[in-house]
């Protein structure tokens, strides 16, 4: 038996084979991954972007540190395709004008509040039998507390959205206290079936728990809260076909203010601060000409 170069090349083309030297970009089929829009991140993500058929986890200590902006470039592109972008149980209101100003087609966005039940089943004298096809019966936990029911609704929503293939991306904020490994496994299957990117936003404490998500990121802010622009510290805790990578520092594209503006004002603020007493109100020290609106909407 002779092994030709041809055979080896064919073998190497096998999608299940992982080559240590490459980050998997070679085997990616078109549409398998969506570039994140951050070159540094793309270099390290398997397939060169967000996996479009898997569950990704964003674990963060604090909401609002820039976790959405990490997804914005992908959202802009995905929203121009004929599939929905589903937000399940967002903690706050996704602000339509801001999303639109970033170039996201907001008519593709669907916000679903699955957790607070729209109409809780009232306690009746006799338990109302449920359809056997209902997900509660299928997953069959004895716990039927309102919280568990809400969690089941959320999971059902995520699974339907993933499985249906009608959504390109699903952003979800699940009930952390009830989320199990098995739940994520089911979501993973649904995501693969419908070729949907399911992104779970979880607290940083979730990193201690095992998870079957294909990608786990730990997001934290840069060291200095006064940092110029908005930077995000990304640790890839888990990825397909690669080892963990810590300390990617990503400069977010759509920072709230331009770099030059911040620099100028920071300089000004620092010079002011040295002259003032330490107990003064920073708001007033920052901007002495407070009475004049600084910006006119163009």
């Amino acid at each position, binding site marked *: 038996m002779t092994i030709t170069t041809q055979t080896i090349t064919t073998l190497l083309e096998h999608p299940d084979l992982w080559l240590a030297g490459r980050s998997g970009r070679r085997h990616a089929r078109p549409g398998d991954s969506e570039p994140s829009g951050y070159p540094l991140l793309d270099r390290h993500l398997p397939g060169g972007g967000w996996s479009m058929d898997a569950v990704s986890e964003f674990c963060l*200590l604090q*909401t609002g540190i820039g976790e959405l902006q990490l997804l914005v470039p992908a959202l802009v592109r995905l929203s121009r395709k004929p599939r929905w972008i589903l937000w399940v149980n967002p903690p706050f209101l996704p*602000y*339509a004008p801001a999303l639109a100003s970033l170039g996201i087609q907001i008519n593709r966005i669907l916000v679903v509040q699955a957790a607070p039940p729209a109409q809780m089943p009232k306690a009746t004298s006799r338990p109302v039998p449920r359809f056997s096809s209902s997900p509660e019966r299928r997953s069959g936990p004895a716990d039927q507390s309102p919280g568990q029911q809400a969690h089941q609704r959320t999971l059902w929503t995520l699974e339907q959205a993933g499985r249906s293939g009608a959504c390109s991306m699903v952003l979800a904020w699940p009930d952390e206290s009830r989320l199990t490994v098995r739940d994520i496994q089911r979501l993973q299957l649904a995501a693969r079936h419908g070729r949907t990117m399911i992104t779970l936003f979880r607290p940083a404490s979730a990193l201690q728990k095992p998870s079957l998500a294909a990608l786990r990121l730990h997001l934290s802010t840069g060291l200095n809260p006064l940092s110029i622009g908005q930077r995000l510290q990304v640790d890839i805790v888990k990825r397909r076909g690669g080892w963990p990578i810590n300390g990617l520092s990503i400069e977010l594209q759509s920072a709230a203010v331009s770099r030059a503006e911040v620099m100028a004002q920071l300089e000004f603020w620092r010079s002011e601060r040295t002259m003032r007493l330490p107990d003064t109100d920073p708001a007033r020290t920052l901007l002495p000409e407070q009475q004049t609106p600084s910006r006119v*909407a163009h």
Partner: protein
Amino acid sequence: MLWLGIYLPFFGLEVARRSALHGSMPVGSMPVGSITDGSTQSRSGQDRSAQVVRQPSPQSADAGDHANGAGPEVLIHDQVVVASNPAAQALGIQPGVSLATAQSLVPDTLRHFPQDRQHEQARLAFLGEVLYRFSADVSLETPDAIVLEAGRSLNLFGNIQTLGAQVTEACRQLGHTTQIRAGATPLAALALARTQASTLPQVALDRLGLPDKVVERFANMGLITLGQVMALPHRELAHRFGRDFANHLLRLTGDLPDPRVHIRPRRQFSQALHLLEPLRDKAALQWPMTRLLEELSQWLISHQLGAEAINWSFAAHAAHTRVSMPIRFARARQEVQTFLGISELKLTETELPEDVLSIGLQARRLRPWIGQATTLFPDMPVVLPGIGTGSHQGSHRGDPVECTELLDQLGARLGEQACLRLQAIDCHAPELAWRPLPLQATSSSRQPHLPPIRPGQRPLWVFTPPRPVAIADLTLLDGPERIQSQWWEGPVIRDYYVANHHNGARCWVFVEQTGLTDTMHKWYLHGYFA
């Protein structure tokens, strides 16, 4: 002109069983699969070689309807058997015997149903509407037959065999056994369908629906079949048996025109099932609901309509407690399975009365049916309605994206108010610059005029309402941006700043200018840039 006669040999029995089964059905155990078209088929199967256009259908998906032959069953009127199913006929129960005799023949297993003429008429009218999709000229022959003009439908259906098979199938799905024959005139088609004779002259006179006296007089003369009578001179026949009979013969042969009253289909769908015994189990509701939905689906197909909204109503006792369960769909629907799936989802979330005695179904918001937007080539880009010209990447394997399916499911299970879409509005006040859109709203392709804000000038998360925040935790980075409320809503002046919270979040905060001294100012967190 070609006419199709559709004769329903066990129509009375089927209608009576249908209404009786709803109530007497033991909860939880439905009669599933006690089906045999086969026994009736074999009875009439000997002359299938001729012009017969019926198809044997041994497996019937429809549960519980085709019970012909399951056990001896008879239809009674005034304690006299008026119809019996094949099983009862095999045991010697013929129409005309008294119920007592029948029960003595079959002591235990005989089931009997009272005849309900009114119900039969309504059902026949409904069947006529179902068959309306095959032909524009459908007329009812009470009590148990339908005639439709097939000649003009042949272009569509190819040949009479195909059309007949489809008619048989449509009736079978609704739980009716049929005998179908084609004929040159309506009366001929009917006569052939009723008697299952191969040609018109072979038709037995006593099955033609003639008055008994006439049949008896012919029998006394030794005339049994239609052929024998038609061979006689017409003038003398008219003289002896009256002009009515003579005209009947002329219409039968087509020598005299036979204008018919064609049905006019209803414009609205509203059906109800009244059960004899209350249902206490949601699972048991599935069966009557399926039945109503099948009727709805048939009605929609025959009218080339789709329903965008349907309404269920469940009542315990006619007027006391009535629960209505409206369901809306993202696009017009026709299929039973879609209706049923969404209805089941909605049902789990709906509180029903203790005992359900009657179930009603109405179709709301009917739309002209536009054919399925399925593509011939599954990998081709699919342009979905309301989305514009975004080309779908060919990477998605399997079916074309069925967006509305998911919306329907979410709306049914989570409630319409749990799902919303967003719309941006050109307004400088942050709270008024967006609006929730209902799920089913038709998305306008026109992008609304957007507020002129820079990317990143507004936060992605917004708190409603704003939360108080301690200024000590904040590091202000940019601002202020002064935003005043609209003048007619009272003077509210806010100065907005971009700030870093010490926990790392980038915030959008404001301080309200109320004319108080600076130390009294309260800071509010209005959003995260996230």
